[in-house]
């Protein structure tokens, strides 16, 4: 609507881009070296063309032509090798610096940012988007500089043959560029269709192949065969279309090439015919003119490259511009003590509020269960106690002290939080157990924690014990084993406050029983808050809070709740029904 606003926006995005490049600390020394080599190559290239032109024209004097030609060829070989090497090394440095910059920032982004973007997007920002930015610098920005220098060198050289020839060439060059532009635009977006169909095919087959058991048990092999073939046919058809378009454009490109050659030849022909330039000069001119046309044609491509890299640069600068979590400011949370109290807490992930004025007290030194129907906000409550999201209103305090006063990093270190996900990293069992523990841990202590979590027997059965690899994302472990390890890890942190979100859901009846007995022992006198939906686990609580639709429906000591609250009764008491009948 307002032109100046649009310009400001454009200008802003360029500015942001360059600021980002500065922040990434580009390898300027390597860039300078790269430019120097490119300039050298351009100079040598001119000599190489001229000497070979003289050879072509039959000037074969050894000292005057052949020897310098050989020399130039060798220098050219060496220089171009070095230049190529410098370019690649420079790209490698640039990639590394950009990736370092993005990762440093990404680690400190608030959880909300991660949830607003899929992990896939975030990964590609670090791995591929940074590479696009490097490409933009190396294949667009630098060639703009070297291209300009090259054009200047070539034109000056031609002007030494005949100044008028240089001017005539300069006049017709835009015509050539126009031909490139007009006919080069005829690239239809069909390969995009092919890629999309192939991606669809892959996605559909992946969905099936990952669930072969379902297909077998349902006996739907024939149906899946037909569905698969239909997708393959779609991919085939897109491929056929692509073939026609791509190949029909070949003659068009050839016509463009012919037209450009004719333009160049027509200009030079009259000068050669009139004797203004010699045969070697004609041959050199013919070579130079071709190079110039390609150079200028490339300039048009730069804009397209810049446009296509803009997506990548925008995505990366979006990360760089997002506010980081402030992990360091505030008091250090060393000695937390007292009840956890929520007062007037308001929070929601989207526009609507999940909690609106939630008040709750979680007693210190006891084990508290949070129960309630799905969607009532149980896990969110634990997330808010761990300060994973900023509150929209109200306070969370421990022992009467607002938790927001503590520095985020020290506060989270002081709490133990076992989330539903049971995250394991590729690495050894020991690496995973010590994740986030941040102190020296003896083997005896590891043994004790693993015994408490009921996983020691398994660890001892492994040939490498704690040195055994767990595979990517803990792939070599079962769900129950992962949960046990996560509990052991939380116990190793020796927290005064322990939050558990469905932390024992995947364990069998005996396993749950053992783990909860150890939790009760290890955490005696400390505060435990857990979310669970099975009766066996809830039975371990001293205190129960029923959450429904973002409000506390009821709260109290376990035994009282079992008799007084309908939800708890249903969850726990009904199991006794049969016994009473009997």
């Amino acid at each position, binding site marked *: 609507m307002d032109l100046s606003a649009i310009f400001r926006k454009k200008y802003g995005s360029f500015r942001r881009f360059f600021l980002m490049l500065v922040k990434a600390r580009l390898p300027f020394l390597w860039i300078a070296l790269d430019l120097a080599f490119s300039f050298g190559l351009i100079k040598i290239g001119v000599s190489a063309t001229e000497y*070979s032109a003289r050879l072509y024209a*039959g000037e074969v004097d*050894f000292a005057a032509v*052949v020897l310098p030609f050989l020399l130039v*060829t060798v220098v050219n070989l060496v220089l171009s*090798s070095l230049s*190529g090497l410098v370019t*690649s*090394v420079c790209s490698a440095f640039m990639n590394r610096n950009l990736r370092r910059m993005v990762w440093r920032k990404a*680690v400190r982004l608030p959880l909300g940012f*991660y949830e607003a973007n899929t*992990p896939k997007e*975030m*990964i590609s920002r670090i*791995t591929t988007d940074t590479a696009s930015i490097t490409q933009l610098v190396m294949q667009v920005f630098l060639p703009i500089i070297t291209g300009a220098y090259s054009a200047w060198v070539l034109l000056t050289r031609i002007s030494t043959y005949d100044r008028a020839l240089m001017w005539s060439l300069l006049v017709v060059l835009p015509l050539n560029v126009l031909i490139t532009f007009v006919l080069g635009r005829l690239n239809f977006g069909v390969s995009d269709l092919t890629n999309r169909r*192939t991606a669809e*095919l892959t996605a559909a*087959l992946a*969905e099936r*192949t990952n669930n*072969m*058991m*379902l297909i*077998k048990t*349902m*006996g*739907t092999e024939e149906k899946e065969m037909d569905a698969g*073939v239909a997708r*393959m*046919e779609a991919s085939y058809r897109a*491929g*056929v279309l692509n*073939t026609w378009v791509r*190949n*029909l454009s*070949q*003659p068009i490109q*050839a*016509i463009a090439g*012919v037209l450009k050659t*004719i333009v160049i030849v027509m200009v030079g*022909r009259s000068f*050669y015919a009139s004797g203004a330039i010699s045969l070697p000069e004609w041959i050199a001119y*013919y070579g130079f003119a071709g190079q110039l046309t390609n150079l200028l044609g490339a300039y048009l491509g730069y804009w397209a490259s810049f446009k296509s890299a803009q997506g990548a640069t925008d995505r990366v600068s979006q990360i760089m511009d997002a506010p980081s979590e402030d992990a360091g400011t505030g008091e250090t949370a060393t000695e937390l003590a007292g009840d956890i109290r929520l007062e007037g807490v308001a929070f929601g992930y989207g526009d609507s509020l999940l909690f609106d004025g939630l008040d709750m007290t979680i007693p210190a030194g006891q084990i508290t269960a949070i129960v309630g129907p799905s969607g009532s906000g149980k896990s969110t409550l634990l997330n808010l106690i761990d300060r994973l999201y900023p509150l929209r209103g109200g306070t969370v305090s421990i022992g009467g002290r607002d938790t927001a006063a503590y520095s985020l*990093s020290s*506060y*989270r*270190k002081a709490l133990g939080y076992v989330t539903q*996900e049971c*995250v394991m990293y*590729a690495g050894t069992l020991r690496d995973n157990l010590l*994740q986030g523990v941040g102190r020296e841990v003896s083997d005896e202590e590891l043994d004790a924690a693993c015994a408490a979590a009921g996983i020691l027997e398994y660890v001892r059965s492994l040939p490498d014990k704690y040195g055994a690899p767990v595979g990517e994302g803990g792939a070599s472990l079962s769900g129950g084993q992962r949960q046990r390890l996560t509990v052991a890890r939380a116990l190793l942190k020796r927290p005064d406050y322990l939050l558990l979100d469905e932390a024992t859901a995947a364990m*069998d*009846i*005996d396993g749950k029983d053992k783990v909860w007995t150890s939790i009760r022992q290890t955490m005696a006198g400390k505060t435990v808050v857990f979310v669970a*939906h099975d*009766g066996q686990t809830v*039975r371990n609580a001293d205190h129960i809070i029923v959450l429904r639709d973002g409000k506390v429906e009821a709260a109290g000591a376990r035994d009282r709740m079992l008799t007084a609250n309908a939800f708890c009764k*249903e969850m726990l008491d009904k*199991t006794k029904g049969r016994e009473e009948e009997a």
Partner: protein
Amino acid sequence: MKRQKEKKRRYAFSLKDLVRFYTRFPIPWWMYIVSVVLGFAAGELAIQLAKFTISFNKGELYNHVIIGYALLTILNSVVGALRSVFDDYASLRVTYRARQAVWKKILHLPQSEVDRRQPSALISGVTNDVGTASTLMGMLFGIFASFYSFARALVELFRCQATLAAYMLVTIPLAVLVFTVVGRLQHEMQRRTYASLRSMTEFFSEHISAAKNIKTQAMEDQEEAAGLAAIDKRFRADLYEAIMGQLQVSLFSFYNSLGTVMIALFGSSMIRKGQMEQTGINDFTTYMNNVNQYLAENLTHYQTLRGTQGALQYVGEMLEGPQEEPDQGEAAPEQVGDLQLEHVTFGYDPAQPVLRDLTVTIPAGKVTAVIGNNGSGKSTLLKLLQGVYYPDGGTIRMGGADVSRIAPHALRRQFGYILQNNPLFSGSVRDNIIYGVQGEKGEGFAWSTPEPPLLFEGTVRENIEYGDVDDKRPPDAVEQNMRWAAQLADADGFIASLAEGYDTDVGESGKLLSGGQRQRVAIARTLMTDPRYLLMDEAGASLDHKSDDTIFRSVRQALKGRTIVVVAHDMRSVVEADHIIVLDHGTLEAQGTHAELLKTSPTYRGYLEKQGYALAGEEAAR
């Protein structure tokens, strides 16, 4: 036909198998032949075109030269385009047909093969590896054209200057050497680049998905260091690539420069001696460029041929490997009978048996619960019953018949199978619920049993018909059954609230629905197949206890009289069963009714105590 020992055989892949791979689908020979003929024509045109280039460089800038050059260039590109069209068409056809063959095979692989081969490798088998099948064919024919053009260019070169051409022949072995060395380097370089890229991507995908964990453990500093290390590792691979990549380029440049130098040296001396005409270097270089171009083409073909071996080996080996014949075997017994395991031993890895010499009976028409600790073999038992795996030893019987003799389809259709997390496929809710119904030829096999389908109360039917006023279509049998099944699975309520009802898209793997909604759709899907035997493996664990109760009460009600096997950790589902089986490390600890097990099974008693049951004569645990 016994299907026991299949997994222990190994399959080697040979040249014979490679040839056989290409007999599995028709190959568009004529397209390849046309492409070769056009390739010959292109070789001729290239030589004619070289003559015009020479003229230009001699300063022969006459109109007929320019026009001839223009026409020839365009003709050349038209021939080239036509050739590519035939090439591409042929290769697309081969890929399309090879894909069908491979996909068919994958669908019929025994489950043990699917486990062994990993889904991701199988997928890339269909999408990427078969691409090499057409590349290989293209190459085989491409070699004819390239070789012909190479020979033609060589003849022209000799015609131009025989002595100099003879000198140049000396460099050809060097070209072969350079190509071989570069090929090796390239292979190693790609391997490293790929490995480093994959390890960096793996690191970030693992850690970025774990953002919540990073925050809760307050370990940003360690994460930063670990990430920088991953980035540096990739950086070192980049540097290696920079050096090795440049080495390759430099080797090529060296070879080319050597040619240039030789022509300049020998050519100039020959011109000085009057053995070659003045502009001979120009002519000769132009023809030499042609020779080099086709030489490179030939050598590239050779390199590519070697590269395809690995990919085709994987696919070929899989095609030669074992497969299931879903419809081969006896029919399932007509009468519903007991499911019996007799001395069954089984392990996914036979060295580590999950079930050991297990003998147990699941009575027909009753609800049987299977309990035991993690790893005791409960889920494996359910998979063996359906013939998804076959035992390593012992026999499984259905109503007395050995299940390994029953056709897999016939056997599996007897069962409904509900897990804790059931996959959905992208498509509408309707597509998912009727997924198993359209069986083989489009007509439903469900509801075809002589007994009435599900035992619905008349009121339910009435309710649904009342609710159907919006629907203009005549409700066919499948549609009606779908609604009953949805109702039974307690899914009708949420489906009605979706924007497009039964036509709502569920997203990839059903991700647009919540976990509980997916579970309900999956239950409806199973009910639609009208199973005689219903197997439920922790089917309620992902639902909150209230929904769990609602759904399974109605399912059990509806399927009263059918054989139901339940694996559960929640003893509420267990105590109500007619028959209970307690497994311990793959062997039978005890079986019987609730009352019997209270006396015979310490595990069973322990379970009840731990879940707070007050046992007769004892205090409750708490």
